């Protein structure tokens, strides 16, 4: 079958009323659950997983996928308006999104992130349609040595992601790594730092940590500080959503770079939208002419991560569908939905089930267009959320965070962790320690350990493996350049012209 035949087949499948309905149901639920802080995509999909028994395989997958990328669309809303990210993948968006809200530009931020999400999603789908085979074969060349080098690059590039004191940023990265070490050592099974608590045997739950640090801490910090929210009623009008010409001009390149970064990380099993969003933000900050604008409402700081996480959402289907290798727990769930219908997910899926594969891919277009249509009119409604008095809004936010965290593992212990990290997050904030580097260390640290040790096992203890493998060597060279560049501007006296500061 030719490419055109496949597209027609896919469109026919995706546009059947039955599949269209489930696509709509998926993206609608996804974007709604994404807006609600704490209820992450995994929890949402787990809850709706039983429904897939009643649907046929294509519709089931279309719906689950719709929830997956729909959540990322919606996840930026609370991050921008309330400084409470909908999911860890949106945490970084709050760094510049929330300041925009405080400047009365929340509507603009929401509109622009919707556009960024659509743009990133589209890039991801095009790659998935045209190059799934090629990309998946290059993803196979990534083994543990490459992953380690890539994580190292990520940590170095993003070490000062929040700006401010470098020392404080580094301390927070280390703290994050330390929290990441808790749990079973995957190489020996030995439990580390779990105080004999069985619930910590698998480590600290990412959702609990992120929601505590960002969500609960923000709620605590707002207590008593915020009087009646000073929302200018005009700022919720439709006209207030209109971006300035400057906004649009500044958004193009971050969107393109963000989509590229997101597409790359999406295709690698094990990484995903959260890391993609962090990296995209770090790259914008580093390549910016005026990095000091970041953290104060720079539109680049929301466009790059939001296009990155949506691109990653779409390209993470490449290894899943083309190789049968699920890159994340959520992708494993999607393959599980196929297995329930007796379809073996694997490399032959594309050829054996063309209507399912192309129907799903074309449904991504429909879903993304639906999300665009769905989200823009809703912006006015979301911005009005700010006019809800805090004594009503924040208890509701807390409740949703608790429900969301609980439902990931049906674990009451995780709810306690949220409270704990909320207090910690508030304390750190009070002393000016940024939370974003801690989340970064928490996500990257354990992955670095896993891949470093596996690379050592595979190379039988030869450190040269990191340089002998060409991809790994290239990535390490980049890392070295960034480090040297940073050191140079640190050691050499600053000129008055725009020498890039260490940030």
């Amino acid at each position: 079958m030719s490419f055109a035949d496949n597209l027609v087949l896919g469109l026919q499948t995706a546009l059947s009323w039955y599949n269209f309905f489930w696509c709509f149901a998926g993206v609608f639920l996804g974007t709604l659950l994404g807006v609600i802080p704490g209820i992450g995509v995994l929890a949402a999909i787990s809850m709706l997983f039983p429904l897939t028994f009643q649907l046929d395989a294509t519709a089931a997958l279309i719906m689950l996928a719709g929830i997956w990328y729909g959540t990322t669309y919606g996840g930026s809303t609370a991050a921008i308006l309330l400084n409470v990210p909908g999911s860890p993948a949106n945490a970084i968006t709050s760094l510049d999104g929330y300041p925009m809200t405080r400047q009365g530009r929340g509507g603009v931020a929401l509109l622009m992130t919707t556009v960024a999400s659509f743009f990133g999603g589209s890039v991801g789908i095009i790659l998935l349609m045209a190059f799934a085979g090629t990309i998946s074969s290059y993803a196979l060349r990534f083994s543990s040595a490459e992953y380690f080098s890539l994580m190292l690059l990520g940590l170095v590039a993003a070490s000062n992601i929040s700006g401010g004191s470098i020392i404080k940023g580094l301390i927070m990265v280390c703290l994050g790594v330390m929290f990441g070490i808790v749990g079973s050592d995957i190489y020996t099974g030995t439990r580390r730092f779990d105080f004999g608590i069985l619930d910590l045997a698998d480590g600290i739950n990412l959702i609990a940590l992120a929601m505590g640090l960002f969500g609960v801490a923000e709620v605590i910090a707002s207590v008593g500080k915020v009087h009646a929210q000073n929302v200018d009623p005009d700022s919720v009008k439709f006209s207030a959503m209109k971006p300035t010409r400057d906004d649009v001009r500044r958004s193009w390149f971050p969107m393109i770079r963000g989509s590229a970064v997101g597409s790359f990380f999406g295709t690698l099993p094990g990484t995903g939208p959260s890391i993609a969003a962090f990296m995209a933000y770090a790259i914008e900050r580093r390549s910016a002419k005026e990095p000091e604008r970041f953290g104060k409402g720079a539109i680049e700081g929301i466009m790059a991560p939001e296009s990155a996480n949506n691109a990653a959402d779409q390209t993470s289907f490449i290894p899943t569908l083309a190789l049968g290798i699920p890159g994340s727990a959520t992708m494993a769930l999607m393959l599980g939905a196929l297995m329930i219908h007796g379809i073996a997910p694997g490399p032959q899926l594309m050829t054996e089930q063309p209507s399912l594969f192309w129907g799903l891919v074309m449904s991504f277009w429909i879903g993304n267009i639906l999300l665009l249509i769905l989200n823009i009119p809703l912006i006015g409604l979301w911005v009005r959320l700010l006019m809800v008095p805090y004594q009503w809004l924040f208890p509701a936010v807390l409740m949703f965070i608790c429900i969301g965290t609980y439902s990931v593992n049906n674990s009451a212990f995780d709810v306690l962790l949220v409270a704990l990290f909320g207090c910690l997050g508030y304390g750190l904030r009070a002393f000016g320690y940024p939370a974003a580097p801690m989340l970064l260390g928490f996500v990257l640290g354990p992955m670095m350990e896993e891949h470093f040790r596996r690379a050592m096992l595979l190379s039988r203890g030869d450190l040269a493996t990191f340089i002998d493998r060409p991809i790994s060597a290239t990535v390490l060279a980049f890392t070295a350049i960034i480090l040297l560049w940073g050191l140079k501007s640190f050691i050499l006296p600053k000129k008055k012209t725009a020498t890039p500061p260490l940030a």
Partner: protein
Amino acid sequence: MKLNIRRMTGAALLVTSAVFANTGLAQDFPGGNITFTVPYPPGGGTDIMARLVVEKIREQSGWTFVVQNQPGAGGNIGLAQVSRSAPNGLNIGMGQTSNLAVNPSLYADIPYDPVQDFTPLAAVATQPMAIITFPGSPFTNLGDLIEAARAKPGSVLYGTPGTGTVSHLSMELLATRAGLKLDHVPYTGIAQAISDVMGGVVDIYIGSLPSVLPHVRAGTVRALAVTSPDRSSLLPDVPTVASFGFDGFETADWKAIVGPAGIPAERVETLNAAINAALADDSLRAVLEAEGSVILGGSAEDLASFLAEQVKLWAEVVEASGASVN
């Protein structure tokens, strides 16, 4: 909070379930929702099998189930929860080789006794492990591999889905019986492992048959042997480990439904009958067999004696392999 979630799941079930005729296996049982604990995350092998069986029972008997995923600590948290619940037949769950037979020997602080703290209800199915390698590998069969490892101890790297998994211990059992030294590279599940096998980064990988079957079928990896006593009907060309001179070699990832200790005998019987009736269904059998499982079923007593045997067997394997945790 618990109530909220229950209510949400309950509502979801109500909405999604079509109404089926009540064939009435017992008059007054269950008289409420049956909470079915899956000690693993949704979408995994155990979860899918549990949901398929539960769905079939629901269809046949009209009972209402609330499937609850309680992952963590290799399934120990969920099963501990089952062992602590009220023994009225309304709280049951799916255990399997690792949390019912392996972990008790492997972990010092396991919060239940696999034989004393559970009422066995019925065995469900079993899956062999398969040893795979990359298509261009120098090992054409398991014999080559064993020879190579003998000639140069420690030259063969084998990947597994994790430390202390049935796959890991199966390979250690083989190494012990063959007098070999193989080097272990644990992964966290199949995703990166299969990519490393395809790329020849790791020499061989051992995992459950359902997890590797699609890749074997696609020809991206090659199966060397299966750990069941007989060849799998899905891979009739792949020999058993036993056929390479290891008489009686058999390891499997089996799954069984259990409840807390002390469920009244007549309820055990009712539940056992319902599980067996579901497992007799052709459509369910077809789905499970297509992925590489062998249906077990049988009486509750069968399962009890099987469990006791398995606990003993794995205690020996764990001891012989020298693997231990804490």
